[in-house]
């Protein structure tokens, strides 16, 4: 058992934890942005993530990788846009619960469609050569994707922050998330802002999915729901609506999960790698419901 905890082993666990965290972060941003603006837990976001994986399989079968990746990302953006228009926009003035039920319905639809298309069999994600190349880090052989993920996450987040803080649409997004009704009255085109949010969230989820399924290549129709829920927990942990919060939460969850999975199998605790995330959720919700960086909202009486 002592042999398990060599420095190389610890480094490799941490690296894959950071990598998983980065992938979750990319999904979590989509959750947190949508929640920030619509106050909706977009349950379908995780399943969109799974659909990206499946599309990757089918598109890579006919096109070379360098062409397939942008196409998959574009289709995902379109799908995210379409889901919002079809399933959430008609319910904008309905009670909040209706939109959430609709989100669960979309999730159900995407899962069942995936089962139908794949015939229920687990599919194998194609190997993307560049990402799978092995390099040495501190004596630990590591796949390139493990290193690339956090770097890519950082670049994308910087870009996103710039977009939100320094462009007109970004300003509109911030305004809408502060006060939906007032923003509408001030002439902000709400629907455009919401669509943009969904498109950005979907694009990030697509990038996340490509990285994620390179590491975990087996895809089933339910492959998306667990990473999706975890990413949502990450968003709650960081304070829903806060992008840096979501990213920090995602890295934390990713690292903890790989550590739990990496513990000796005789301890029998790997079954709790998913449950841990939810325990964390319940703890954070009871102790600090606003998360690390969240804002407090009060109801007017």
């Amino acid at each position: 058992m002592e042999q398990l905890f060599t420095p190389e082993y610890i480094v490799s666990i941490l690296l894959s934890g950071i990598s998983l965290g980065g992938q979750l972060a990319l999904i979590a941003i989509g959750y947190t942005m949508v929640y920030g603006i619509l106050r909706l837990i977009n349950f379908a976001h995780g399943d969109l993530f799974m659909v990206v994986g499946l599309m990757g399989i089918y598109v890579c079968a006919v096109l070379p990788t360098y062409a397939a990746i942008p196409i998959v990302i574009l289709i995902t953006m379109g799908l995210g846009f379409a889901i919002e228009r079809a399933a959430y926009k008609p319910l904008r003035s309905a009670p909040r619960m209706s939109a959430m039920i609709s989100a669960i319905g979309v999730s159900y639809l995407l899962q069942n469609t995936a089962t139908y298309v794949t015939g229920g069999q687990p599919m194998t994600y194609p190997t993307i050569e560049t990402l799978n190349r092995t390099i040495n880090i501190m004596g630990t052989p590591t796949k390139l994707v493990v290193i690339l993920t956090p770097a890519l996450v950082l670049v994308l987040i910087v870009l996103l922050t710039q977009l939100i803080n320094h462009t007109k649409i970004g300003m509109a997004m911030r305004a809408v998330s502060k006060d939906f009704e007032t923003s509408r009255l001030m002439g902000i085109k709400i629907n455009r802002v919401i669509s943009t949010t969904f498109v950005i969230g979907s694009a990030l989820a697509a990038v996340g999915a490509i990285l994620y399924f390179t590491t975990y290549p087996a895809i089933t129709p339910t492959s998306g729901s667990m990473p999706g829920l975890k990413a949502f927990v990450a968003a709650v942990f960081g304070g829903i609506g806060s992008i840096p919060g979501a990213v920090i939460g995602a890295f934390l969850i990713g690292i903890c999960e790989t550590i739990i999975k990496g513990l000796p199998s005789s301890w029998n605790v790997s079954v709790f790698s998913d449950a841990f995330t939810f325990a964390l959720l319940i703890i954070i919700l009871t102790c600090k419901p606003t998360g690390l960086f969240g804002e407090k909202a009060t109801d007017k009486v």
Partner: protein
Amino acid sequence: MLQQKTNRKGAAGAVLGILALLLGVVLLENLSALIPGLPGVLQPTSQLFTVLKKGAVYALVVVSMNLLNGFTGLFSLGQAGFMLLGAYTYAIFTVPMDAKDQVYYLYGGSAVKFSLVDLFEGIFGTSGAGGGIALIFAVLTGLVLAGLVAALFAALIGLPVLRLKSDYLAIATLGFAEIIRAIFQWQTLGPITNGANMIKGFPTFADFNIKNSSGQVVLRLSTMVPFLVAAVCIALVVLLIRSSYGRAFKAIRDDEVAAEAMGISLFKHKMLSFVISSFFAGVGGGLFAMYVANAQAMVFTSTMTYEIMLIMVIGGIGSISGSVIGTFLYVACSEWWLRFLDAETYIGSFKVPLLRSGFRMVVFSVVIMIVVLFFSKGIMGEKELSWAMVRGFFQKLRPGKKAAPAEKKED
């Protein structure tokens, strides 16, 4: 309003109705034995009885979810977790002693050296009527325990999560269900939960079929049993909803702030609703284990909760009769009427496009989305089925006659 008399009359009518329903179910299941040569639909092996059994089980679970979501306005997604607790509790306590070694062979037998079945057989004997009474007591005690364990866990988890607002509550209860599922698959608890393997060998619905001495079935009761349990439980929920407490739940649903200002303790009443809902979900879980004849943690996923929730939406959030109707419709479609969508079909040599395994669920999800988006009230909305409504419906169907204005619901 002040009419206590009609209430009493209504209660008697309801009891008679339930008895008639049960009798009808028994008759239906035994019809093929009484009259030979009936169509296959009425044979005991027909899909009809699968639908009836599963429908009864699910109806109870959907009603329990509706009590929480529809009547108290608490959006909880933990139903599968409470069903799991119920299913396992029932299974663990009712596997007979002599079957335990075989079920738990991976762990060298069960750590629970006790079985309700053996306990009651020790009191009433094993053969004839005594055995039957022992079975009834064992199953009933098992189901009540199933409900109590689920309710106990609900009380524990309710302390932290019931203070949360709508969507946070949803995600916290969903997370709780996942935690429970992981715990029941944990190898270390194997001697109790059988780890990730299923528990089998406990009494199921089929055990209620009465056999003669040569082992032949003389009276089939396997469909009546889930109907009986579900009907009693749903009747209790209806009684609760129509009581002062039910009205307080609705007040919380409609406006928490006003409810609290009128002296209704939010925490106490939310907890009450949560615990009672979980109790019935636990009983439903026990029934579910009886229906599938095993208890296995991996079945009780969040997808199961979603399914239950979507049935509730189809039936109408805030309507008990809607939940029951919705459940039977849903189960009949998924287990029976729409099965053909899953089969590759040829008309002559022409292969009907799209039809193959999985298509049924796609059609289903589309229908559900249509209901959610365009018919958000579901079948019943917040109304309950009443004679006046049925009469009005048939009057509308009859051409030439003007539909009677919908009468106000009673009470």
